[in-house]
């Protein structure tokens, strides 16, 4: 897949290249993600769709280095990310070159980033919204305290400023407060906090913190932020918890949000409101979003582009209108046809026969071959790769890109 970074399109802010994540299991190596590649442009919403177990979540988690190793083995590939306003590109010193996609910014490989750098990025530059907000929130802390964590971790300097302590203030009290704001407070600081003059300043920090938390919650249309801040997660409804998660994700104005099935656990009416919220906030902040979902109609509604995954690989990628109105991969076609719609006769939905293949030590060949109605001999021996079928629309299927002569020879050799 060649990067098309030029042109008037917004710059590529993140890119997954040939990502391979395998899992060790008793029966062998599970190739959960096996050569996934796609790009996310600045400010766009990219949908990642596919059936359960096709590797969507693993791919999403790779952006935050949240894949547990073991059992996972990162077998190759890179996850590139260019923070907005980051350091200058080392290759061109900021003037823009091919390596940095003409942005002049530095490109980070998130898989190779040291832990402390990752921690700075996580939450601040890349945030995640999980499917189950109940599990992602700490049940023993109030919403306010959990939200405050994010600001203390990433925005402590601004907090100090709000409290009237400038960065070059170096006296004892200022240092103590700085440590408190950075959550590095020592025993003595905690004692000192109780006495003037620290008390007033600490109070001001707390006020600034509360104001920020309340503002973040209010932005997600939570009617009564102060009440929600005092509540524990279990006291809130599912939709409300998801709003808190979104507020938390947006708190530091990140460049990229990974939303892993954010509305799957919610009812349709609440789902519609959460989606609307994500969409408006995304447009307002011009945040890029990787929207993971198995619901095709939702993706069509909220996303700009979509990547369809099947069994650990990307089958098709393109703009939402291209992919949904002119699907070129047999799997995408099958998936779209399987959605029950008005007018289809009962018992006559177009279903894809069979089920998702096991990904234990797979042999080469199209992963969809055993369910594909148009399977050809080459399909079971060679891996189809993504190739362009139109402006920004790529498909990995031999129907579109017949295996070239060299590959055909290999195929012949294999069949003999």
């Amino acid at each position, binding site marked *: 897949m060649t990067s098309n970074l030029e042109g008037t399109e917004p710059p590529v802010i993140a890119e997954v290249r040939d990502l391979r994540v395998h899992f060790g*299991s*008793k*029966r062998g190596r599970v190739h959960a993600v096996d050569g996934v590649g796609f790009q996310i442009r600045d400010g766009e919403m990219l949908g990642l769709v596919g059936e359960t177990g096709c590797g969507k979540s693993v791919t999403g988690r790779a952006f935050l280095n949240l894949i547990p190793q073991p059992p996972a083995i990162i077998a190759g590939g890179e996850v590139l990310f260019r923070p907005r306003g980051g350091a200058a590109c080392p290759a061109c010193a900021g003037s823009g070159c091919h390596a940095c996609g003409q942005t002049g910014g530095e490109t980070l490989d998130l898989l190779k980033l040291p832990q402390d750098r990752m921690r700075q990025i996580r939450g601040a530059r890349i945030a995640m919204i999980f499917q189950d907000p109940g599990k992602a929130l700490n049940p023993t802390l109030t919403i306010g305290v959990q939200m405050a964590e994010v600001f203390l971790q990433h925005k402590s300097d601004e907090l100090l400023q709000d409290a009237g302590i400038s960065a070059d203030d170096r006296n004892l009290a200022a240092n103590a407060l700085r440590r408190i704001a950075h959550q590095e407070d020592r025993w003595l600081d905690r004692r000192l906090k109780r006495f003037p003059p620290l008390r007033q300043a600490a109070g001001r920090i707390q006020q600034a913190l509360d104001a920020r938390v309340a503002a973040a919650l209010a932005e997600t249309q939570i009617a009564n932020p102060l009440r929600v801040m005092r509540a524990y997660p279990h006291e809130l409804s599912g939709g409300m918890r998801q709003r808190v998660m979104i507020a938390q994700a947006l708190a530091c104005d990140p460049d990229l949000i990974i939303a892993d099935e954010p509305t799957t656990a919610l009812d349709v009416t609440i789902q519609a409101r959460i989606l609307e919220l994500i969409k408006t906030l995304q447009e307002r902040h011009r945040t890029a979003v990787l929207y993971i979902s198995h619901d095709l109609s939702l993706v069509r509604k909220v996303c700009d582009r979509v990547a369809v995954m099947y069994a650990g690989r990307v089958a098709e990628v393109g703009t939402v209108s291209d992919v949904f109105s002119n699907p070129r991969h047999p799997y995408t076609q099958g998936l779209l046809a399987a959605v029950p719609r008005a007018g289809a006769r009962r018992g006559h939905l177009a279903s894809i026969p069979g*089920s998702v*293949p096991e990904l234990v030590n797979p042999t080469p060949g199209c992963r969809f071959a055993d369910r594909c109605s148009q399977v050809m001999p080459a399909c079971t021996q060679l891996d189809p790769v993504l190739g362009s079928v139109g402006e920004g629309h790529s498909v990995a299927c031999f129907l579109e890109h017949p295996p070239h002569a060299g590959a055909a020879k290999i195929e012949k050799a294999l069949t003999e």
Partner: protein
Amino acid sequence: MAVTDLPTPPKRETAFGVRMRRWRDLLKTLLSNPTTFIGFLIIFLLLAMAIFAPFLAPPNVPDPYQMPRDWGATRMPPGTPGFPLGTTNQGGDVLYGVIWGSRTSLQLSVIVVSVTVVIGIAIGSIAGLVGGWIDETLMRIVDVFLSIPELIFALAVAAILGPSFTNIILSLCIVFWVKYARIMRAQIILIRQADYVQAARVIGDTKLSIFFKDMLPNASTPIAVQATLDMGNIVLVGATLSFIGLAESGIAEWGVLVSEGQAGIASGRWWASTFPGLMIFLWALAFNLVGDGLRDALDPRTEDKR
């Protein structure tokens, strides 16, 4: 997890064969764990000793569970011809005690575990299924039992019943059922709401059948683990009781032997209590190793992977 279409096995499968394979797979998983394997090995040797006791050491007449007395060979050290592990103060052959003691221990643990498991399952099931005040009452009793340490409780009961090995068995039965009752009740309450129980009710199956087909098999895992652990613990507690003197003196029982031999330790006659003590330790250790292995192997999170 999802196995799509496994190639049809060449041989015709039978339900019996598949079930056996599940057991075999379980055993394989168990044995692949080195500590569990060691536990199994020790248990195997101990069981062999118990089974072949009459051949390893000719039974004492009239009562083989009574230590033989050879007043001409008291306090012999290990290595004495005829007495490889030495003799006790009363001229009892320590090797005989070790060998026949394994039979005593096996009897003790098998009787106590089977009785307590049955009582525990019965009481736990009644509490979990009937609910209401019956459940309340039974569980309060269980709480009271559990609040007293097992050993002290057993000691008190055995003391009241009077010193004899039979009474030790009886007292252990009275003490050890509570854990099973509690485990069983918790399992039943969980399983009662399970969809497969609902499904069985929709079919119209009887309550009894649902209990034996759905509830009992699915509740059995933690019970089996606890029972294995208790096979070891009971011998330990039983030996402690007989050590204190709650069993008849002179019987071939490890705790009694340790007790009777300990007086001699100060004067350098270590063997009379060390060998039976070692046996108690090995027995408890082996069952605990296997119990832990069983718990890991039966963990539902890992079971699916097989």
